[in-house]
């Protein structure tokens, strides 16, 4: 299901990047790239075509919120599925995420089952 999807995940924590990479591998994904903040992710988005983006919220340089706002302003990325994986679990955070155009939201710590379900939902698989 995920083996032929190209995935970009964005997190400033090297630990989280390793954990997400491991989880994606276990879910069968083979084509994924990582970015350490919003700016880095934008560069990758310009260079490659992704099926889905997983992003953290709290990051230096460019936060996940700023990144999503930027992405949604661009016509070509308006329908790109974005899943936010964050420690921010307040209702107002979720509502903000929805308002700026995030398609799915997971509060850390996540489980592989939830990650899989959310990704498949967003990919329409």
């Amino acid at each position, binding site marked *: 299901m995920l083996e032929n999807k190209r995935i970009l995940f964005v*997190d400033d*924590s*090297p*630990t*989280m990047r*390793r*954990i997400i990479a*491991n*989880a994606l591998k*276990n879910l069968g994904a083979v084509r994924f790239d990582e970015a350490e903040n919003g700016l880095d992710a934008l560069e990758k988005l310009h260079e490659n075509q992704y099926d889905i983006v997983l992003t953290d919220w*709290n990051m230096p340089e460019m936060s996940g919120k700023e990144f999503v706002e930027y992405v949604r302003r661009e016509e070509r990325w308006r329908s790109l599925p974005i899943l936010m994986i964050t*420690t921010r679990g307040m209702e107002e955070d979720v509502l903000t995420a929805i308002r700026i155009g995030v398609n799915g939201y997971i509060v*850390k*710590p*996540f*489980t*592989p089952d939830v990650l899989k379900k959310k990704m498949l939902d967003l990919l329409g698989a």
Partner: protein
Amino acid sequence: MHEVNGINDLIQRINELDANIETNSEALPLVHDMFNFIKDIIPLMLEVNAFMKDGSQKIPSASDNLQFVSQTTEMATHKILDQLEFINRKITEVKAQASQNNGSQDMMKNLETLEKKISDIFLAFQFQDITNQQLEYVNRILEAIYKKFVDLFNTSLKIRGRTLFGQDILAAIEKELQKSQDNHALQKFNVVTTDIVRHNGVAQDMIDKYFNQK
């Protein structure tokens, strides 16, 4: 103006001023009230000043300690993840060998269970990122408090320069602080806030050297 020698001296002077002031009967209660307010506020300023002095010195070190904790846990986490990845690679190799040699189904099942357990441990390390973010938040609060301390200190310097009375109050507070080395509240604050995790201290070889000198 003669030199003030501590808070009591200053309060004594305020009392003298209060007693000798001549004004009309309408303004008198207000002036008395103002003098009483000044007398009340001075001990509070003394406390605040002492707290500012001690607290502001400790915040940068507490903030460094939090950053050190974050870095240490992150490094330790990566070492553990390295080991888990190594074990995972070995399990994959063993699985390949087992399937070539027609290994038993039980053995394959056990290896898959091990893979699942390793994946669970991997996921459990999300705690490192979560605690890291909490520590970063606490650090930001500490930094904001520290900046406020510095601002307060600068404001107190402005008070000193603005009026003769302000100069006297701050001079009296400084004298009082010098006298209050045995102040119980200050000592208690110092004990509570003494750094107990001193990571920048002495290296192990130096510790051994000290013990060898015994």
